[in-house]
């Protein structure tokens, strides 16, 4: 990939975005009937489906249950057809396990866990198409699904990635930018309070530039928040209108 110019002199990225522009986000809540909450999100060409069950009694015996808070159980998986080359991905592979762990950490920090002691919430995330920023899309989808399920949270959790190319931070990086070997910073925040619930970085980035990249990523999460919030409000008003019709 050495020959690809990630950022042209005129300030365009390979897909035509400017450094600080997000990809197009489209989302829908309540896509499944049988789940307690569900959502579908597209961030550019990254497409993710999330479903939430619970809170319910802990499955598999009392042993796992926590006495003071709810057990958040996540499962992340990628469809065989989600990448350029078709590849079987068994549930337990290392990458998805790691991602599962990360999601679990993120949502443990955001859900008001103490409200449901000795019970369990399941979050299932499936990546249908992967084009960079899988974690971010998964977090955003899961947030929407949790909201759909009506589970109390401190705030939305919004995630966004960023990188650093030619002395310029770029936000919401796609697969091509991700795989070019540059630094990748992933952050999940609670946008209203600007608290960071999750932060991860790959590859090398000079210390001096860290704050610049982080600022851009946090700004990205706020933009994501706007989109998600609008989607939630639209969904609510739609559902409310439907219920009114139902009642009348």
């Amino acid at each position, binding site marked *: 990939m050495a020959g690809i110019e990630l950022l042209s002199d005129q300030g365009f990225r390979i897909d035509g975005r400017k450094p600080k522009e997000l*990809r197009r986000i489209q989302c829908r809540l309540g896509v499944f009937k049988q789940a307690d909450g569900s959502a579908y999100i597209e961030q550019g060409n990254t497409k993710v489906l999330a479903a939430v069950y619970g809170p319910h009694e802990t499955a598999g015996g009392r042993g796992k249950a926590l006495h003071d808070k709810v057990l958040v159980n996540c499962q992340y998986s990628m469809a065989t057809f989600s990448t*350029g080359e078709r590849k079987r991905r068994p549930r337990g592979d290392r990458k998805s396990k790691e991602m599962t762990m990360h999601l679990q950490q993120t949502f443990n920090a955001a859900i008001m866990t103490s409200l449901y002691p000795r019970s369990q919430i399941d979050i299932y995330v499936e990546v249908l198409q992967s084009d960079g920023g899988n974690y971010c899309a998964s977090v955003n989808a899961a947030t929407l699904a949790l909201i759909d399920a009506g589970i109390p949270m401190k705030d939305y959790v919004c995630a966004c990635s960023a990188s650093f190319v030619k002395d310029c931070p770029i936000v919401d990086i796609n697969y091509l930018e991700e795989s070019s070997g540059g630094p990748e910073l992933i952050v999940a925040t609670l946008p209203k309070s600007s608290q960071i619930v999750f932060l991860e970085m790959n590859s090398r980035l000079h210390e001096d530039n860290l704050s610049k990249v982080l600022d851009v990523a946090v700004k990205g999460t706020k933009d994501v928040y706007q989109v998600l919030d609008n989607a939630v409000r639209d969904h609510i008003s739609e559902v409310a209108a439907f219920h009114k019709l139902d009642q009348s």
Partner: protein
Amino acid sequence: MADILQKSNRFLRFKSSKGGGVCVVREIYRRETVPCQSSLCLSNCQENTDELHLLPKEASHYIMPDPAVARDYLEILEESSITGIIFTQTTVHSVQHEGSRKLLSRLKNIVKDKRRRSVIFHNEFQTYAYCEREQGESLALWQRRATFQSAEWFFNHLAGQMPIVMLTDNQQACEEYGKKTVNVFVLTVEDYLNRFWKDIKPGLMDLYYSLKASVGSKSKGKEYIGYLSPDMLTAGVKSGKLIQGFLQVNRNNASTEAFVRRSRQDMTEESISDIFIYGSAARNRAVHGDLVVVEILPRSQWRGRSLIIKEEEVEVEDLAARKDEGDDTTPALPTGQVVGIVQRNWKEYVATFAQNEETGGGDKKAGKVLVIPYDFRIPKIRISTCQVNALRDHRIVVRIDSWEIDSQYPNGHFVRSLGKRGDLETEIAAILIENSISVNPFSDAQMKELPTDTPERPWHIDDSEVKKRRDLRNTHLVFSIDPKGCEDVDDTLSVRLLETGNIELGVHIADVSYYVHPDSLTDIEARERSTTVYLADRRYDMLPAILSANLCSLVSGVDRYAVSVIWELSPSYDVLAVWYGRTIIKSRYKLFYELAQAISEGLSSEEIVCNIPELQGVTEHELVERIQELRTAISCLMTIARNLKARRVRGGALELESVEVQVQLSETKSVQDLTPKEHMEIHDTIAECMIFANHWVATKITESFPNQALLRHHPLPREEQFSNLKNCAATHGFDIRTKSNKELAESLDKCVDPQDPVVNKLLRMLATQAMTNAEYFSTGSLSRDQFFHYGLALDLYTHFTSPIRRYADILVHRQLLSAVGESNMKLPSNTELDDMSQHINQKHRAAQYAQRESQELFQCLFFKGRGGSDDDEHCIVDAIIYQIRANGLFVYVPRYGIKGPVYLRSKEGQVLHIQENGSPEWTGGEISRTEQTITVTSLYGQMTYRLLDHVTVKLSLLESWAHSSGLKLQLMSNSPHKSSQLDVKNLAKQQKAEIIKEVSSAAEDKRSMQMSHDLGPNFPELKKQYGQTPEDQSLYSLFESFRETALFSAG
């Protein structure tokens, strides 16, 4: 700005690593406002693109080449008078994917060059300028359609203010699109050149035909068969199985011997440094300078390099003639063969038609002709041209296009002619082109940026600047010491005693960065040139004359801006405080070296006055005072410098040797004489002050910008390079230790043969040859332990003191000024600086080569017509042997500083015997050789030559048709030249001065003094006069000579 983005997907098919096809979807966002970068734009679409330049307002039209044109005829677009080119993104992509990386970087260079005012337009991100590729549409067709669509959009976007010319090489497209929109012309390249450029640049037409012919004959893809695939190369290099590096052809044996030098990042591993490539089959179509990947052959196939000195222009195709060379080679070296080429570094080459080239009766058809490049290391090039007869004795410029797998020679095309061979101007132009030095006059736009200083509008100091700067005009005695007749004075000095008893030393450097703003045209041009190029008879300035010879030149008696470094030194010369900053100075005296030296030695007042124009017309009383003041300052300066130097020497600084020859030209530009430059202590004094300033500036900028300071380092030499030096020294029983720079310096100091002062000089010169080059680098790109300067024995060093002549100094000035907070310019980042430093290094090397080649050219002119008579005292000279080869010797001629081969065995196999009466004769015989001696056994007897023996040689001109003419050295006698006694005496004079240690230096430096036994007849007198140590050669020029090391090829 609210921009509406449209998202769409684009489907691409790739080949996967396993060989199957992969379908990839990439999204693309389009918008309505994509900067058009035209200064005529009405819709204000250029946001935050200040640093990008704009398309010109005043052009008659804009050019938009389609991808095929950009790929095949890029060279025409490179012509500097064509401006206003719009490359669409489609074109750039096509050049990248269907062309080569090299081609892409050439395209980028056009766009980067502000003077060309050309841009890349992102048509694929513009909603209306883009068109989707249709089902079943061929790639080329779609590319043309997309280019036309962009051209149309551009035309409409600028509201019809500017006609657009789309260039294509497809006749159909011309007809299809040509009439669609008024003022959007679609022309073929030929048509376009005919209409617009035929009268202005007739050369372009020739270039076009030449290119067209080579496009037609190019069979695509064939060139790289026989090389490994890029994937395999990358994998091989990563795993360490294959080695990547630049191919360096041995100048002395170009047809068979080449080396691959590892590139910088691989240098850590010391085990195998250079890979030997033997023969043209193993070289596998690589040309000197290419970045290649080699495979190491099994040990059984390793071989040594030949020790026979090849006579130039001998075709070495008949292998039979060299069957006996088995025992004339060095021990086997790691040998390899080229298996792939990462990057071609083909450039323009100067070439000549073969002397006896036949052209089938002068027919006008373009035929294929072989031309011989000027540079020995480049193979012959096949070009097609119909002008063989007209250009028979011209030097021409050619370019290589390709090298087919089934062809012995590469294909190229003719670019232009330089003029008749043998003319001085042609030869100089050839030297410049061979070293890629461009010497176009400065452009008008650039001159407009600069301040003026004409009698009508004199330049004067700006009052606002006076307030900002420290004013030294009245407080300090500032003066400059330079070579006589120097115009660009960039350094001045001041020194005074403070009331506290401390000494204040100041170095004041011309404030070039005040005039040259980053990214101004002057800056770009200066960066491109990087250095002023000094040839033997002329120079090409880096900055326009208004700056270099006037406003930046710190001449005496006028106010000038300067950047100063001022130290406060304790009486024992320790640095107590340093001040850096911008100042205003008024230099009191402009002295020259000889005069300054004489003043310090007590020149009488009368003579001082008549040599310093600044003192004339001063009253008697004041005169005495002022002379006294100046004399004190100079001697104080010398004392400081001596101390500083002694400290550095204790740290292990080296003193090395190089002879600079000055060409004395008569008015008619014919060469009068070649004289070695003289050396005095004052040279060292100035050099030492400059080194001191450079070092302190380096310290400051490294401290402020640890990741992006521009420094200069001199890496450790490689141990194996010292073998010849050790060999030579061993013949006189000297031992050279090369563990560290200190040991080397000390052991070199001990190598003094009282009978023969040249020995020490020669050994120092060989040591210089063994060194690696000092180079600029950005601190962010190397680890801290590589910063040091080996030769100067300093941990940090940079170039700060000659901003008029070197671009690196300008960069350092900007960094220093930001470091002390006097400017808030945007400094280049580490990566930019790294690129820049590579460029500067390359340009400096090129300038050095050019300088040396021009000196050789003048040497040849000097000996032209003198070689005839045997008794010409200029041609019969003393020489000293410094290397022994299988069929001859390499000797050094101290009189002219020339090195060259002397043959003891002729091509016919005869050996040279010196008869009793001293005349040489070729007879049958044998040659046997050991490490240190070579013995010629003939019918008449035996004759042995040892390393460092003196011999007498005759110099004569060796004319060459295709290459530069050289000098031929013939052995005349195996004893020193008679009149060389005189030379020895002269040298002894310098040598003596070096040996006597001066008192204060000795106090600093406890090493024992080495006194020579042969002090010469006039030693006591000399001692009285000097009383201190003028070192033999100017330190400064010596350290400069580090860089020259690369000039000596391995042979």
